[in-house]
């Protein structure tokens, strides 16, 4: 079993390159639990933790191609919140990054970080 993922060591290196654009150019987004509109700071632990599911949806937004064909096996898909065992996120309103899919290795790391309890 691999070492639990941490934000500073494993997650910041995935997202920091996008942090400036998110902060300066992306509109505020609805925070979970009705916390209102907020800016997502991809270089801030608390912000990424708060928006972790929205981030997961965005980076899994390319999992199925435009022809409806899955690009990744079930084990690497994102289950919808509150959905059934095979109820996967198949698209995203704004898949991220906008220029194309992150490497699967990076998506896997972020998913594991979430599973590991989102350590700082």
């Amino acid at each position, binding site marked *: 079993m691999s070492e639990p993922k941490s934000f500073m060591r494993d997650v910041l290196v995935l997202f920091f390159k*996008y942090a400036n654009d998110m*902060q300066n150019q992306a509109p505020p987004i609805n925070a979970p639990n009705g916390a209102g509109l907020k800016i997502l*700071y991809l270089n801030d632990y608390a912000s990424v933790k708060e928006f972790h599911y929205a981030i997961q949806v965005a980076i899994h937004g390319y999992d199925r191609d435009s022809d409806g064909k899955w690009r990744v096996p079930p084990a690497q898909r994102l289950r919808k919140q509150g959905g059934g065992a095979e109820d996967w996120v198949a698209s995203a309103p704004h898949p991220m990054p906008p*220029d194309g899919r992150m490497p699967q290795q990076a998506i896997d790391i972020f998913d594991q970080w979430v599973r590991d309890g989102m350590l700082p």
Partner: protein
Amino acid sequence: MAYTGLRIHPAIGIARVGSSEEYYLGPESMAGMRQPGQDTTGGLPIRPGTERDTILSTELRDSCGRLKRQAARFRIDQYAFDSADGAETWPAGPASEVQPGSVVDGKVVADIIWTVHLANKKANSWQGGNGVQPFVDGQLPALRNPDFGALDNASRLSKLVIDAGPRALLGSAQQAIQFDAGTTPCYGDAASAAICAAPNYPLSFPLPGDAALPGSTGPGSLIRSLGALSTESTGRLVVLGGYGKACAFDALGKHVPSAALDGDVNNNNWFDDVSDGPVSAILLFADGSAREVEGGAWVIATDPAYAPQTPNVVTLWDELYCTWLEQLALRPTVYAGQRYQSSYRTDFDAEVLPVLRAAALQKWTTFLPSRAIKGHDLFAYMKADQRNGFKIMNFLRPPGQDHEPATAAPMMPLSLGDANQSLLSLTPAQYFFMGQWAHDLYATGSEPAPVLAAGEALDKTVLFNCLGGRFSPGIEISFIVRDTNLYQRGWQRHDSGGPFRINRQRLNYRDAVAQQPLLGIGYTPLRDTPVQPGDLSKFMALPWHTDYNSCATHMPAPNPGGVLYDTEQAIAEATAVVTDPDTIRPNTLLYSSWPAQRPVAVYTYDDLVASGGGQLPAPRFSVRGPGTRADVPRVPDPQNKIDRPALHVGRYQQRTQFLQDWDKIGVVLQITAISPMPTPPKNKDLYLEVASLFTSDDSNLAESWRNTAIDAVYPPPGSPSKP
């Protein structure tokens, strides 16, 4: 009294090394600029033996796959002036080429004697890469190879200077003469109107070592030649450079298989086979008389052009032009009284559009995000009156400024800066021209711009296709292009030879003595010292290969916010959410070095074909052979400066590998020059990498800007199979 001026063009010519005996001619059109009536933009090399037929991708390599050399071609033009001491201006006006059969001052030209002298002084030079600063106030930098004694020590000179001596040939000869140790030096002599042998010339090549060392052609083998001369049927001169070799030597100066390659710019105990030197000519008339051409030229042999149609945003021409405007009174209508003239109406096509085109074309050699590409594309074919109020000056980094916050809207050019400058800026002249355009002060059709004669246009074009701006140290000519001591400064008489001429030292070949080096210290920056063969290239990296390999992407140096250390606290501070926009902290971004000359990321022809020719696949690193992957843990920096894999992508991890594989790198060409093309391209503005000999991609995933020093790195995308 009427005077006929004779000048060789280009004033500074560029040859490029290759691993093949074969060659093509250097481009004589401006990289990336539209050519009248053609889909193909400028910058393509020319097929040998033709006036201007450009090559196809199939002509980049020989039948054995070796990269062809790029030859520099020279011509002689005559200018009709009112008097020898008349006031010269630039441009000088109409001119016509002189070939055998031409008439000059009523006399028929029977032939031309061309003389070229090539040398390489890199190993007998100062440590480079820090620009002009180490030479100011009478100081000099430390020497390369300090264990060999003082710079002018005869023993040192004989061991560390590669001096192939002069070679001369007739324009009608059309046969090659080699710059090697086995060919007797010779030179054109105006007094006798003949080519004279110089059998006692002190030729100097790397000393052989153990006879069991590698053969004559492999990587690391002994350098035995700096190139060759030839002529065309028109009598024009063709100069070929070396073969891209580097070879090592021991403490006695004798050849050894290898030596340490500890740095990117200064490596002791190494030679390479680039070179430079003067080009001169004598006209031989049918009546038996002769006349020396007063406008002599210079040739530089340097690295290959891996993206010949992609111009740098700041070119070598821009550097030279700015220097001549500001310090040598080239065009008082533009610059006089120590300032640019606010009333000057800029020539949009000549002074503004090249900057915009270059910016738009950077996307083919470095990985820009789609938003940046869309923005730059707006400028690709812009006309002077199409700015539509766009405040372009808000996006241009003023010359000399490099302390911008890394988080602000990026300023342009988006590249690393000059020696001791963090980020690149336009030259003051370029910045001035852009400002004039931004204020609608540009010339219209009723104010025709000065027209360059063909030879003068060649002076400009050849240097336009070379690197400016980032002289740390650069690749063709370094910071010395800004030193007026490099040039013949009394250019404003018609009999001077005209502008942009190197202040060459007249060498007395007749009295040369074997074993007594004729070349010495030579040109020293900021000193009034004449220029010897080898004096221009000696400021470049030794060998050039290590600098080229290194110059993919880097953090700015110096980093405006200070050194970035690899500690959790330092990384946290450098990456924290910015609340005060004026906060200056270490810049973590990675910028391209000189991508138009040293492509970083490229779209490959093979990937496009493999994808069915539709949407462009993701770019790959240009340098991607085995040994380029940067995902292994590195030895921690002793000072804990950041040194993560992201800082090392797109290059060989071991410098020695580049010495072997430099000629495997592909070349970026416009799709209209690529053959075969399965179907005629709909979009003719694609610039794709072809002729790469890397059979697989062993590097990393290329990532678009804003990539940073702390980024995770990933494997590359799958490679299309190649034979």
